[in-house]
């Protein structure tokens, strides 16, 4: 199972466009983070990838081939909400997976469930939200699938188990599996993901290697002489991707030479100039929050 290609994926629910012309590729054995605000279309993208929802248009290819029932042997999915059967025990879920998937490892499932402290004799209705999530994660990892898709895999887990799940995800990648996951905890994504895609209102806002995205972008921070100080068209500078202003403090995102932008600020009479490295949260916020809204403020109008 090699590269996953998503091409021009579009999914509408009546008049609502959940996913709009989404295209990106997920390389084999990569940890891929799918980020986006609530309602951005992450879960719908996963559902289209898995055949749980029919795309309105576009394709999802696994190693160049469309999804067929046999492909499901190689894909494990953990949805964001519990889909376990309330009336079944955890052990019965293990048995269900064993019967359905050729590579499912019962010893591995037993070990993971033990690590999470889950009693297999319990019916899943007796488990807490976090324990249900942990059960689903354990069952998915015990599948020994080539592709693992996790939608908010740490939702409801305590910090210890969040860390444990993250380690499991990284271990799966080390095993050679392709891991795709979404999370609102950007720190987790930053720690685990090699590549990310940011979707916003169904559209791809950003995609690339985490390291590249961070190294390509810098923030130039400056203190302006006054709160109403005009920036003389700085917001329209093609070298500046985005600019935010909070009182006298201005932060400009650039993917060009940061020194040039810094010199521009210096020429305007700004003080406290410095170039700051971006973290993933900055990249995410820049990708999804509207920059136009601050234009007036930036220009001091």
């Amino acid at each position: 199972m090699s590269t996953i290609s998503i091409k021009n994926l579009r999914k509408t629910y009546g008049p609502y466009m959940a996913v709009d012309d989404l295209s990106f590729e997920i390389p084999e054995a990569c940890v891929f983070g799918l980020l986006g605000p609530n309602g951005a279309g992450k879960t719908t993208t996963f559902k289209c990838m898995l055949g749980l929802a029919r795309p309105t248009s576009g394709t999802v290819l696994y190693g160049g081939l469309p999804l067929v029932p046999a492909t499901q042997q190689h894909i494990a999915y953990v949805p964001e909400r519990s889909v376990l059967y309330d009336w079944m025990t955890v052990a019965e879920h293990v048995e269900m997976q064993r019967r359905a998937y050729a590579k499912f490892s019962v010893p591995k499932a037993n070990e993971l469930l033990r690590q999470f402290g889950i009693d297999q004799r319990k019916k899943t209705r007796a488990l807490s939200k976090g324990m249900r999530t942990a059960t689903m994660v354990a069952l998915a990892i015990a599948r020994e699938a080539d592709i693992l898709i996790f939608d908010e895999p740490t939702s409801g887990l305590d910090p210890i188990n969040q860390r444990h799940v993250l380690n499991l995800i990284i271990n799966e990648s080390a095993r050679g599996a392709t891991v795709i996951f979404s999370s609102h905890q950007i720190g987790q994504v930053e720690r685990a993901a090699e590549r990310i895609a940011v979707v916003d209102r169904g559209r791809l806002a950003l995609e690339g290697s985490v390291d590249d995205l961070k190294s390509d972008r810098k923030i130039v921070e400056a203190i302006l002489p006054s709160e109403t100080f005009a920036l003389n068209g700085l917001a329209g500078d093609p070298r500046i991707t985005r600019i935010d202003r909070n009182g006298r403090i201005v932060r400009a995102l650039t993917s060009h030479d940061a020194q040039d932008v810094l010199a521009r600020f210096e020429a305007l009479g700004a003080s406290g100039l410095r170039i700051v490295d971006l973290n993933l949260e900055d990249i995410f916020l820049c990708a999804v929050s509207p920059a136009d809204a601050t234009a007036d403020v930036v220009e001091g109008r």
Partner: protein
Amino acid sequence: MNYVEWLRVRNCLRIYAIVLGCLIVLALIIRISISNWMSDEQYTIDRVSREPGTTITHSMVDGVNRTVIENARERTTITIDNKGFFGGKVITITEPATERSRVNQHIGSFSFQESHSAGMQTVTTRTDEPVNFAIFLVIGMVAMLLVATILGAPFAAENKDHLEIALLKPVTRTRYALGTIGVDAAGIAVSGVLTIIAAIVCQAMFEVPQLDFSQTDGWLLLFVVIGPFAWYAAINAVTTSLKRGSGAVVGFAWPAAFVIIGLAGIPIQGTPVGQVVHTIFWGVSRIVPITYMHEFEVRHGVVGDLDLPSRVGILSLLMLVYGALAVLQWRRVEA
């Protein structure tokens, strides 16, 4: 691949078996409770046996144990032909006529016949009457209909919250659907068999039934099996696309079916409103499988004079159409 459905069916049958077990225990309690006074004949036998001057003789006649209890002073003769546990008994009591007179009856294996002659009455009680097996089949069919109703919404159960499990199995949706239907069909059939066995056991507690299969033919067997399957398929077709509310559909399925059949039964020669109601509901009732299993409707001609093969044919058609509708819907559901 259909392990979850198998578990559902197993749980359903487990509960159903417990209910049947309770009924058997209840029958046993009744049997024990009435064992000492279950018949006037037994009372007479006990009474006469204790009378002075009574002679009791045992013999073997044509392989049957015969006991004759005779009391000349009371002019009473009792003949008991015992054919063993599985063969039943024939008890004939001849005694002076009394004022009480009983209606000749035939219930299950039991029959009572009374005749009078020259101031004497002869009461013959038989426990070896043949029991039409078709009765047990119909009892089994009713049970199958109930279980078919309970199991009738398997896809709605998945559709509610579990599509991420059900649809990600490495099989086509059609194969998954057919597997699920197959598991449910097996469960429904097993419930019928369990019910028939339980009914026979209950009957045997009172007297081992001499089963008569002469009226049980292939058409009847098909009717008994296909009727519940058609009902299951109908509920399934109605509920498959539902994410919520399938329980209400299942709960109201029987009342709704009987309302439709009842309103379809309003005579056409009634009021104009009645005629309209009849026409609408008659039409709707054609696609309700229960219509073809409802004896009331047969008597009132709503189904017409459909014979058993015709009913089997219609029920088979409904079963296939509803089954196909359920599968087609399942192929289209989205999480």
